[in-house]
């Protein structure tokens, strides 16, 4: 346990330094606020386009649906890419991977630790985006005190799933060259379409709904929206389930993905060590 904690602590420190130490602290704070606010304006623009295409009278519930989904999607893009690129950047850019790898740590925990700073930075961005939406864009959020424990549990499970998926991609990236970062950009794209981020699953064809229901993030987005904005009343394919059932589904799938991430990561690591790819660098 001591090894895991030590690994996590140092890796999280390193991740935080890498994420925050590229400029002066005051500039980093400004950047951390401005970036999500700018993202919120993109959502407004998307909504305006949707309204112009389909609903000239507008739909505040749809806007809140889209806004909350996209706010939490910040976690997906940031944590997935952040987790995936640890191996690639340590290997290709910093060329430190061989020294990290041969140190007496858990490399799995090292990646989780490196991703922890992404979670912290993303949490700040999500909070800023939501606050901006509530105060300036009339986004409907009513999180009751009684719903807070379930919301926190759902967020923790959702982040666990995200880290697990990121580590699965990390396991694959052990074996791939640097140009496969497209994988970490493409996978979130799939989640964006099939997990009810932008629109409910009910608008997808049946095969699309089936894909969505097979991805744990769908349950995370659904229960997060239910708890943050209980009055939305948007029909999703999960409308028939109660909150506890969805949380349970999220719990079961997060356990399954955690186990899968260990399997894929260890397999990727073994084959990379076998093929001599742990510290490979590509010259193209």
């Amino acid at each position, binding site marked *: 346990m001591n090894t895991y904690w030590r690994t996590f*602590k*140092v890796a999280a420190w390193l991740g935080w330094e890498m994420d925050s*130490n590229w400029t002066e602290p005051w500039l980093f704070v400004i950047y951390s606020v401005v970036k999500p606010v700018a993202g919120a304006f993109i959502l407004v623009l998307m909504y305006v386009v949707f309204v112009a295409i389909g609903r000239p009278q507008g739909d505040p519930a749809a806007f809140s649906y889209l806004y909350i989904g996209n706010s939490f999607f910040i976690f997906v893009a940031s944590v997935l890419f952040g987790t995936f690129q640890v191996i690639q950047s340590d290997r290709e850019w910093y060329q430190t991977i*061989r020294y*990290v790898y*041969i140190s007496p740590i858990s490399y799995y925990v090292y990646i989780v630790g490196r991703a922890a700073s992404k979670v912290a930075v993303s949490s700040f961005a999500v909070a800023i985006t939501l606050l901006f939406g509530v105060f300036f864009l009339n986004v409907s959020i009513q999180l009751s005190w009684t719903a807070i424990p379930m919301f926190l549990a759902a967020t923790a499970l959702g982040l666990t799933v995200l880290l697990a998926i990121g580590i699965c991609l990390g396991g694959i990236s052990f074996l791939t060259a640097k140009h496969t970062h497209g994988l970490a950009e493409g996978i979130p794209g799939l989640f964006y379409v099939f997990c009810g981020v932008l629109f409910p699953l009910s608008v997808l064809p049946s095969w699309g709904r089936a894909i969505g229901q097979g991805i744990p993030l769908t349950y995370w987005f659904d229960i997060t929206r239910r708890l943050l904005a209980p009055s939305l009343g948007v029909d999703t394919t999960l409308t028939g389930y109660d909150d506890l059932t969805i949380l349970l589904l999220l719990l079961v799938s997060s356990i399954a993905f955690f186990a899968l991430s260990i399997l894929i990561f260890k397999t990727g690591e073994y084959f990379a060590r076998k093929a001599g790819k742990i510290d490979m660098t590509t010259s193209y």
Partner: protein
Amino acid sequence: MSYAVETRDLTRVFAGKKHRFRRKRTADEADEHLGPVTALDGVSIQIREGELFGMLGPNGAGKTTLIKILATLLLPTSGQAFVAGHDVAKDPFPIRQRINMVSGGETSGYGLLTARENVWMFSQFYGVPSRVSKARIDELMHVFGLWDKRDAKVRMLSTGQRQKMNMIRGFVTDPDILFLDEPTLGLDVNAARIIREYVLNWVRSQKGKTVLLTTHYMAEADQMCDRIAIIDKGKILACDTPEALKRMIRTETTFRLEVDAIRDTASFSSMQGVKNFSLTNDIGTNRSHLTFILEDEGPVAEILSLITSQGKKVHSLQKSEPTLEDVFISMVGRGFE
């Protein structure tokens, strides 16, 4: 007897690259790139605890592959390797607690961290108490001449300074077994001397510290190592103390010649009494340097006559004591370059 490092018939073969979607290769390209490469071929060595063991060989001989296997970065294709009594393939974690590794000629490091932070961070992975680590880092920064740059971001350091930082990273964890892969590669003379002296002192002044040093610098191996294994094309050709290795060819005679650039050396191979020879060309001076390992002094006149008959001038002729390079030439029939 237990060894710090032991390998038994260690073999590592790298599979050839397959580019299924690339244009068809020409015959030359196919010869050059396709097909498996045997980096280590049945290597068996034993390194005793407290020993400074050298692995001497030209580029591509298999030195780095061996270190990667021993440092648990790479799995062997066949055979076994044990470090501190643990199998590198089956039981890497206890090995990692006792080793560290430094590769020369590379510029690794997190550019946004300072030199001190970089080294400190790695020491934390090994569980070195932070206060102990900081004291060691300060001491090592002084020793390796990096004190003035201790708080500089790594991206601002020169290649040599980064190499020094990596040396410090290797020593800060005070490993029982240290793998040094060409540690002085590309360093200036003074920095290389400091590193050699520190490594020697580190091994000699503490009980039980073991170093496996790979190098292609003959003098470095000769000066530092208790024993040396000469490796070429993945095979260990000889393994003994530097003196014993040189004694192996002491019955032979070594002559070095500097002559006008020559191309045709085929006749030397068939000359009676010539055991082996190597040729290096100096493009700058347009001269060739020849080293002959002879059974006795008999063929010298014939060699000189052959060179002058080609219209080439002999600028110098020197009989010398055998060096490790001569041992290598005697065994392989070529020099390191």
